[in-house]
């Protein structure tokens, strides 16, 4: 018991990461069709019948593995109003046609206004430095589209509701860092989710002290509304956000 305490405390102090034992990425399964292509110089112990070959303990056979950020469902343990994010990437260097193969990172705060990978600051006292919720990466399809499953973001002091977006070309070169703003008004999703109806989903801040787009340090210069997405849906059905972002690729 004492040792467990000691080890647990020292892990926390040094910020170590634990590997969840969840993958069998290297398991090598040999099937009979594989064994049929051999040289035939074996000991003769193998069977010629059509059976699945033995599974061997995985060895050091590395396979190329995507970053753990690559996920479409970015909720992890976060709860809130259901939310689908659809982002179309278009290329201004090609008549604003769809850009396929672009890498899109997004991240946003949870219903209480907290980000993962942050904490212990005056902006966010809750320590979420070791968790990765509400962050994800997808690659655009032939329509330039990426889709994420999430929860409707909350808000925090001095900022309007927003989603961070970082767009890269296929080789990982940064093309654009931007943010997506939300429509406002009494019947808007932001007002509804943060209104009395959203309380049942855990949104308890209300709209008192909310920073609207016109007063927001990031969005106040967006005179044309180009950064404001289309948001449709309801509390019960969830909301769908659609936004087009133009980059020069």
């Amino acid at each position, binding site marked *: 018991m004492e040792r467990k305490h000691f080890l647990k405390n020292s892990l926390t102090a040094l910020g170590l*990461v634990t590997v969840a034992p969840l993958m069998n990425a*290297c398991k090598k399964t040999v099937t009979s069709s594989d064994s049929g292509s051999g040289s035939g110089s074996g000991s003769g112990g193998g069977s010629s019948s059509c059976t699945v070959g033995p599974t061997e303990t*995985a060895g050091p056979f590395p396979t*190329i593995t995507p970053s753990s950020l690559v996920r479409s469902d970015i909720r992890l343990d976060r709860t809130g109003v259901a939310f689908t994010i659809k982002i179309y990437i278009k290329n201004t260097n090609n008549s604003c046609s769809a850009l396929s193969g672009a890498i899109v990172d997004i991240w946003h705060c949870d219903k209480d206004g907290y980000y993962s990978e942050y904490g212990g600051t005056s902006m966010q006292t809750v320590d979420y430095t070791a968790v990765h919720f509400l962050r994800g990466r997808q690659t655009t399809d032939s329509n330039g589209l990426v889709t994420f499953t999430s929860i409707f973001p909350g808000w925090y002091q001095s900022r309007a509701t927003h989603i961070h977006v*970082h767009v890269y070309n296929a080789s990982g070169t940064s093309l654009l860092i931007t943010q997506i703003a939300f429509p406002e008004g009494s019947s808007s999703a932001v007002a509804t989710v943060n209104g009395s109806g959203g309380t049942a989903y855990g949104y308890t801040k209300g709209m008192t002290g909310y920073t609207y787009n016109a007063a927001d340090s990031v969005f106040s210069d967006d005179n044309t509304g180009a950064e404001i997405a289309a948001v449709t849906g309801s509390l019960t059905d969830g909301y769908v956000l659609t936004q087009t972002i133009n980059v020069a690729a």
Partner: protein
Amino acid sequence: MTKGIIRFSFQKTISEQPVTLWDKYVFDATWMEYRMQAANFNQKTKDTLFTNILAHEPRAAQLHQMVSTAALGYIRQLEGIIPELLTVHGKALIPFKNFQFNIVQSDMIDSRQHKVDITFISEPLTLIDTFNHHFLIAIGDKSREWVDGKEILTELIPQSGALGIYSVQAADGYKPS
């Protein structure tokens, strides 16, 4: 009598001349992730070198964690065995669950600058003795078996500059019950 329960720390450095295929995959993935994530922190200065970005933007310390996301899948492929921490017979069999990932240096343009290290923390081991620059250990806490006079299977691990002791703890077999 055993000397107690220890956990090894074993540091593996991955740089521009990867030794194994695993090293190369980790190198390529983490350098790409560095180039992608560092772009979040150099918008004003256009610095590309990690230490320069960090000097101008303390928030860039997050890059250690952000870049580690690219290595995580490869670390899982190790299936809980510390690579290259070998017994005198050349076998890798020391278990780990925890690790720490650290960017030593990197650059968004020059891959030759990219260097990361991963420190693996072993699961508890019983340290029986040290001699001739070797650790004689048993995997797990075997202090009770020792007290009971049972045979304990051991491994002999050569000492090296990459190998340290992360923690020590009195063996359970010597604790007052």
